[in-house]
Structures are given as structure tokens and as C-alpha cells.
């Protein structure tokens, strides 16, 4: 079934957040989301240096089926974007939690506690549809 790694936090809008040892965070979309979208064909990423509000649309993932906004699960400044997605958007299908990461952020204000889900809560949300 769909993969929901236990060490990540998740937004209700299907993004994941990985807190890294250096204090930055990595963001991508969940295995559930990539399954629902189908084969990705284009990914629009933000510019490095852009400041993001929590919940702000900052990227677009377009699949054979539809274009979808990706929302910032935490506030922060874009430090790095995954340039490989321009040529190989299918990395998100193949490895959504690894090579398919979308941006790395310097987090701003800490997220409101209730906003992010742990793996168990997210798995339940994804299961419910």
C-alpha cells in the first residue's frame, strides 16, 4: 500500500516535511498524492530566496490528469529547489520522499501545533480518501 514514513510530518493538503539536522526543512508531496495524480509531466518550482507563508501555494505539480498547487506546510524562505524535477518530474512518482523532494526551506515562525499531522494521523486521512 501507500508509503507513509514515520519520521516525517504531513499537511492535510498532502505535503510532507522533513526536519533536517542543520535546522532546515525539506518539503515534497506524499506517496498518496503522487498516486492520486498519476504520472507527473511538469513541475513549477519557486525562486530561491522567496519567502513563503504557511499554507501559501508555492509550486505546481502537473500530471497527465491535472495541475495541482503545492502549499507550504510551514512558513519559511526557499534555500534550494530540486532542479532535477525540470527534466525528470517522474522522480516524484518514483521516490516521493527522496529524490522527488521539491524545496528546502529555512523555517520561519514555528507552525501552529495542530496544523501538521504525524504519520499515523496522515495515514488515516489518506485512507479516508
Amino acid at each position: 500500500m501507500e508509503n507513509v514514513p514515520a519520521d516525517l510530518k504531513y499537511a492535510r493538503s498532502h505535503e510532507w516535511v522533513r526536519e533536517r539536522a542543520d535546522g532546515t526543512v525539506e518539503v515534497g508531496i506524499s506517496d498518496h498524492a503522487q498516486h492520486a495524480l498519476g504520472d507527473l509531466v511538469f513541475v513549477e518550482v519557486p525562486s530561491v530566496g522567496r519567502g513563503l507563508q504557511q499554507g501559501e501555494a508555492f509550486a505546481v505539480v502537473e500530471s497527465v490528469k491535472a495541475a495541482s498547487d503545492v502549499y507550504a506546510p510551514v512558513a519559511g524562505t526557499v534555500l534550494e529547489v530540486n532542479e532535477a524535477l525540470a527534466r525528470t518530474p517522474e522522480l516524484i512518482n518514483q521516490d516521493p520522499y527522496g529524490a522527488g523532494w521539491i524545496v528546502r526551506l529555512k523555517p520561519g515562525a514555528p507552525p501552529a501545533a495542530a496544523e501538521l499531522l504525524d504519520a499515523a494521523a496522515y495515514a488515516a486521512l489518506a485512507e479516508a480518501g
Partner: protein
Amino acid sequence: MAGRLEDSLGLRTPLYDLHAALGARMVDFGGWDMPVNYGSQIEEHHAVRRAAGVFDVSHMGVLDLRGARTREFLRQLLANDVARLTQPGKALYSCMLREDAGIIDDLIVYFLDDAWFRMVVNAGRRARDQAWIREHAGAFGVAVEERRELAMLAVQGPQARASLASLLSPAAAAAALGLGAFVGAQLGTWFVARTGYTGEDGFEVMLPAAEAGALWQRLNACGVRSCGLGARDTLRLEAGMNLYGSDMDERTHPLESGLAWTVAFEPADRRFIGRKALEATRSAGGGNNAVGLLLADRAVMRSHMRVATAAGDGMVTSGTFSPTLARSIALARVPAAAAVAGARVQVEVRGRLLDAQLVRPPFVRSGRVLVDLDGGARAAP
């Protein structure tokens, strides 16, 4: 009055359990639970362009029409002329029109013998089609029977015919491989036709439902990939083929849907349903034309998007990402004055106007790209 339980559940083809076992992602399509892909729609698409794939198209309706006056009846019922069918097994693509020329359905009709024709109609139109056909068939003494006991598989791609033939007896294989384009033949309990909806060579096989799963698995075993409706849609769009409900419906007529070639105005004395309305439209001129669009930008055109042209607005009727061209392609309806191959238009994609080039479909046939991706229209028709 409460609805019937079966109406609230998706209809299932005889292959439903097999699709589930193969890991298909299922979607609703015209009331049917159908596989959209078995993992990757794009890989399935490439398999059909480069080798072979198999599709479950058992949701389509197979209607047998019998009676001594069936040919005469169909010459009135259909916009294309079944008088063109003289060889048993030969098929014809046609629209079935209302009196006002609105398209009730597009279909394939096979001439089997002088008192027996077979139609294959769209899944979502089975009930509407049968009601319309029966309404008109009585006067000709033609009986209509839906062959619900048959499943249908489409085996498509450059290796499709050889793959299917390898599973037949030597005599049946020779007969199948001897079929000309758009011709079918009854081989034992199977009806095998050299038809399809992908722009590749191949067969469509109608067979008893109980035999369909075994055929599917034997095809898989000889390298034919399971393909879902997602790949079927990108393949047909690359091949410039219309999809009923997107590129035409009861509110549009064949002349504005890229289907003028399927309307047989000659002989002039054939009074097919919709003829008068089409003749009036034709003599009025103007109106809309169906065209193809190619997008240079990294975005995907989708149905209902606005197409801005020098002669006014048009609309995308179906759009997608073309796996073969690695860019977005679409079928659209634009003002006739703007329908010039090579013209530049703009498509409104999520609030932005993006440049697109008008081309004449098909985009891809038999594995070959037929449009110029670097600008300029395709030289030869």
C-alpha cells in the same frame, strides 16, 4: 422512489477481478469501474507505440442488427453510407445523428452478411443509442440485440498482430494476419477485427466473457503490456481521433467536429437522418472548425480552456500531455476563419495566455510524428 442498488455501484466488465489483481487504479468511466492505469500511464502509452499493449474495452456496446432490410435501414440511420461495405467483415466509421444533425454517437459498423450488421458503440451511450435505433428500426423489420455476453479486448501496437496470432491455431492465425485494415472475421467463437483507437496497427477481439481473462494473461505472457484508459486517451488524442462527450456530443454536428470526411453526401438521394440540417449548415458557411493545437510552454492544455484567435474565441475540446511529443497537444474548436494550419493562437491556461500553434491532426500515427515541432505546419496532408 429509491434507485436500484446496481445503479449506485459501478458497472464491471468480466475482467474486473483481473484488473484488481494486476494492481490497476480504477476510475469511473461512464458508469463503469475501469482501469485508468496499472502503474504508469506514460509507460503504457510508450509500450503501444513501440511494442504492444492490451486494453479492456468490454464496456463498449456490441449491437447486432438483423433482418433482410438492415442495409436499407442503416443507410437512413447513419451519416456515412453502408453501401460502401461490399466485402463481408468490412467496417465503417460513422456518426449517428439527430434530425438537427446533433451527434447521438460515433460508432463502427461491420457488414457481416446481407441480413446481419454489427455496431460497436460508446459505453456511456448504449441506452440512448438503443432507444434511438429501436425507434427507427421497427419500420424496417430490423431486430436489435445487445451482445452483453461478449467481452472485448483491443490489442494494439506494432507487435500486436503477431502477438495475438501466436496464440491462435495455424489456420486462425493465417486468417487473422490476412485481414485488411478495418476488416473483421469470425474465427471460431472469437470475432477478430483489424481496428482500434490508438493510431497503431492491431486487433480488437470480441469473445465470450469467460475466455477473456485467459486471453489477457496469455497476451501478458508474450510481452503485451496491460494498458488502462489513461493511455487509451493519450494514444487516441495523438492519433487525432475524437472522444464522444468531449470533442462532440448532441449539441455539435460532424462538420464542426472534424468529421466531415465521415458524412456521405453522395449519392444525393440518400435521405439519412440529419442530412437536411447538415446541408443547411454547409450552405450557410462560417461556423466553427475542429483543429489541433501544439503548445510550446511547459504546461498542459485541458478541455474547456479558452483559445484566443484573431477571429474570436474558440475552446479546447480535449487536451493532454503527449508522451510521444513530450509536450501538450489538444483538439479544439475555433472560428472557421481562424482555422488555418500554422496559425498562432493563444490558450488560456490557469490564468495565463500561452502561445500555441494550430496544426492539422493527427499528431502521431504508426509510431511516426506527423507535426513539425519547430514551428510551421506539416507540409503534406
